[in-house]
C-alpha cells in the first residue's frame, strides 16, 4: 500500500486551476485505516474528464493554447461531424468548460469523501464475492447527497447494500455550495475487487 496524499492534492489542485481543456489526474491509492480487520485500499481510478474529442486537437498546435476557443471551433468544424458542437459559440465552450470543471470538482470531493466511508463487507470478503455496483444520486446546491438508488446490481445483495449504506453515510459535501444553484444528478460506479495479498 502506498500512501500518496500529495498526489491527490496535486490532482485536485490541477483540477481547480483548470488551465488545460483536458483535465485528468493519475491513478493513486490511498491507504485507509480499516475498522474491518484486514487491510484494504480504496483506489481512485484515473479520472479523465474530457470535453468532446475534438478538443484534443489543441495540443497538436501549441500556439493555439492561449486563445483556444476560435481555433477549437474551426478545428471542430473541419474534423468532426458532431452537429451540436458546430453550433457552439465561444461562450458555450466556456460554459461547458465551467461545467466540466464543476463536475470534476464534485466528483473529486465525492470520491474523497467516499474513500473514508467505503469498506469491503466482511461477508463478501469471506465468500470471495466481487463485482461492480452502480449507484445514482443527486447532489443538491447545498452539497447534500440525496436520492441514492441502485442503478445496476453487482449480483450480490451484500455488495449492493454495502455500497448504498456507505454512500448514505457521506451525507454532504462541504463547501460545494459555491458552485451550484440547482444541484446535479450523477452515477457513481463502485467496484469491489479482491487481490492476493
Amino acid at each position, binding site marked *: 500500500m502506498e500512501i500518496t496524499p500529495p498526489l491527490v492534492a496535486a490532482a485536485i489542485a490541477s483540477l481547480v486551476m483548470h488551465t488545460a481543456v483536458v483535465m485528468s489526474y493519475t491513478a493513486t491509492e490511498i491507504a485507509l485505516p*480499516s475498522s474491518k480487520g484486514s487491510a*484494504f485500499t*480504496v483506489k481512485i481510478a484515473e479520472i479523465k474528464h*474530457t470535453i468532446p474529442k475534438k478538443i484534443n486537437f489543441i495540443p497538436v498546435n501549441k500556439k493555439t493554447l492561449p486563445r483556444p476557443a476560435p481555433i477549437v471551433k474551426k478545428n471542430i468544424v473541419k474534423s468532426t461531424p458532431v452537429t451540436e458542437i458546430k453550433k457552439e459559440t465561444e461562450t458555450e465552450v466556456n460554459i461547458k468548460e465551467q461545467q466540466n470543471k464543476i463536475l470534476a470538482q464534485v466528483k473529486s470531493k465525492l470520491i474523497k469523501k467516499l474513500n473514508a466511508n467505503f469498506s469491503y463487507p466482511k461477508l463478501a470478503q469471506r465468500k470471495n464475492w466481487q463485482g461492480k455496483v452502480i449507484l445514482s444520486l443527486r447532489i443538491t446546491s447545498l452539497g447534500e447527497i440525496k436520492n441514492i438508488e441502485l442503478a445496476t446490481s453487482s449480483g450480490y445483495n*451484500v455488495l449492493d447494500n454495502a455500497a448504498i449504506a456507505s454512500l448514505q453515510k457521506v451525507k454532504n459535501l462541504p463547501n460545494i455550495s459555491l458552485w451550484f444553484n440547482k444541484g*446535479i444528478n450523477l452515477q457513481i460506479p463502485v467496484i469491489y475487487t479482491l487481490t492476493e495479498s
Partner: protein
Amino acid sequence: MLSLKKSSLAISLAALSSASYAIEQDAVIVTATRTAQTVDETLSSVTVITEKQIQQQQAHDLPSLLTAISGIDMSVNGGMGKKTSIFMRGTSSTHLLVMVDGIKMGSATSGDIAFQHIPVNQIERIEIIRGPRASLYGSEAIGGVIQIFTKKGKAQQQTYAEVGYGSYATNTFAAGISGKSDKTSYAFNATHLSNEGFDAEKDSETDLDGYKNNSLSLNLSHELSKTSALAVNLLHASGETEYDGSYTNNTDFLQQTAGLQYTLAAAQNWNIKLNASQSLDESDNFKDATFKSKFNTARDTFSWQNDINLSDNQLLTIGVDYQNDTVDSTTKYDESSRNNAAGFIQHQWFGEKNDLQISARRDDNQAFGAHSTGGISWGHEFANKLRLISSYGSAFKAPTFNQLYYPSYGNSKLKPEESKSYEMELRKTSDWGKWSMSAYQTNITNLISGNPVSNVDKARIRGLELRLNTVIAGYNTQLEVAAIDPRDEVTNKILQRRTQRTAKLNIDKEYGKWASGMSIVAQGKRYDDKANEKLLKGYTTFNLRTRYAFTKSFSIKGKIENLFDDEYETAKDYNSPGRSVFVTLSYTGF
C-alpha cells in the same frame, strides 16, 4: 451562476468515446485481500502459501515447503519421499487433517498422511490452519488443517515446461497447460521427480535409497448457467520409494484424489455445494524384489453443503456428509469397511467491531458410535487495527483400522481420541507490516497407545507463537518464533520427536530480472523416545535461492539447501540431506 442540466452531464460523463470506459475511469474501487477459503481468517490463525511463493521457494516436495511455516514441526525418516510425520502445534501426525481440493487424504489403516508424495508442482495454493476444526470437518482436525488446492485454469491460456537437476542425482520435469474458453476452464499438469537419494538409515543397509514420483493433475470447470457450475478434479501421484528395513525395504505407492462438484446459487442468499469424491492411499511393499504386503485404502465421500446469508452480516453454513472407508490388504482385518455419517452447522456473525462464530457437528461412526464436537470463536477489534481473537474448539480422531482390527494388536472397543483447545491471539496490521501472537493450550484424552492398544494416554500441549511480516529495504521479511511444551500427562515427559523451540526466518526480494531469497530454520533439541532418553540435538539449516529471468518466458533458478552442511536427525539414526544444490530451467508460454 451556472446551472447544470442532466443532458450536459450525460455528455461529459459519457466522454463520447465510450460510455463504459468513462464509467470505469470514474469508479470508486474498493479492494481487500483475498482471504483463506477454508476458514475465516479474521477468526483463525492461518498461513496461505500462494503459487508465487511456491515458485519462489523452489521446493521439490511438500515437507520442505511446509518446514518454513509457523506451527509446523516434522520428522522425516531419511530424505525425500520417505515417511514424514508432521506435528501441527505439537499434536501427533495423525491429528492433522489434510485435504486436496476439499478431499480428505490419508490411509485408513495407519492413519498416516503421505505428505512426502504430494507433488508440489501441481499446487496452486496451500492454506495452513492452526487449531481445531473438527466441528466443520470431523475426525483428525485436532492440531489443524492443511488444505491444498491444485492448479486451476485462469483467464489466459498458459503453457509451461520445467527441467531441473541437482544433488543426489535429482531429476525433475514438469509441464502443464491451463486456460479458459468461454464457460469452461481447464488445467492439466504432469510432473516427474526422481533421485538416487542417500542412505536413509544409519547402521542398517548401506545402499542409496532412491525415490521416484510421477504425478498428474486435471481440473475442469464448466459454467452450466449463470447460477450453476460443474467441476471435476483429479490428482494422481505414484512411484517408488526405497528405504532400509529387515522386513520390507521398498514400496510402490499410489496417492490419488478425485472429485466431482456441483455448485448452485439457489437464491440470492443461498448457495449449494454437492460433492462426490474419492481418495486412495495404496502401497505394495517389498523386501528387495520379493512382495511382502499390500495396504490399499479408499475413502468415498458425499457431501451437501448450504451457505445461507441470513442478512448482510450473518452467514449460516449447514450440511451433511457421508464417508465410507474400505480396506483391501494382505493383512486380515476383522472388518474391511466402515462408514461415518455427519451433520454440521455453523453460524457466523460479522459485526462492526466484533465477529462471532459458533459451530457444531455430530458424527455417527459405524465403529465407535456417535460423537459430537463444537467450537466458538470471538474476534474483537480495538482501535488502531489491533485485534483480539479468543476461541475454543473440541475435536476428535477416529481410531484407525490398525488400531481397531489389526490382528493381535487392535482393539475393536476403542473410543476416539478427544481434544479440547483454547486459544487467544493478538494481531495488528500497521503501515510497516503486521504481527501476531498466539497462546494456546490443547488437552488430548483417550490417546490410543500400548500393545494391544487401548485409550490410555493423555497429553497437554501449551504453546506460544509469534509471527512478524515486514518489508526491510525491499526485502520481504517473515519471522516466526514458537515455544511449545508438548507433554505426556501420564509420565510428564516431552512427547516423542517434538521440538520445543523453533525460529524461522524467510527473506525474499525481487529486483528487475532477479529474485533472491533465503530461509533459516532453527530447531531445538527433541527426544526420539517416549522415555526422553534418546536425545536428538538441535540444528539450523540455511537455504539460499535465486532466479534470473532472461525473458518473460525463459528463466533459470537455483537453490542451495543446508548451506553449512549441518548433520542432523529428526528421527534417530535417520539421515537428513546434507548440502544440496539444484538448478531448474523453466519456460512459460502465453
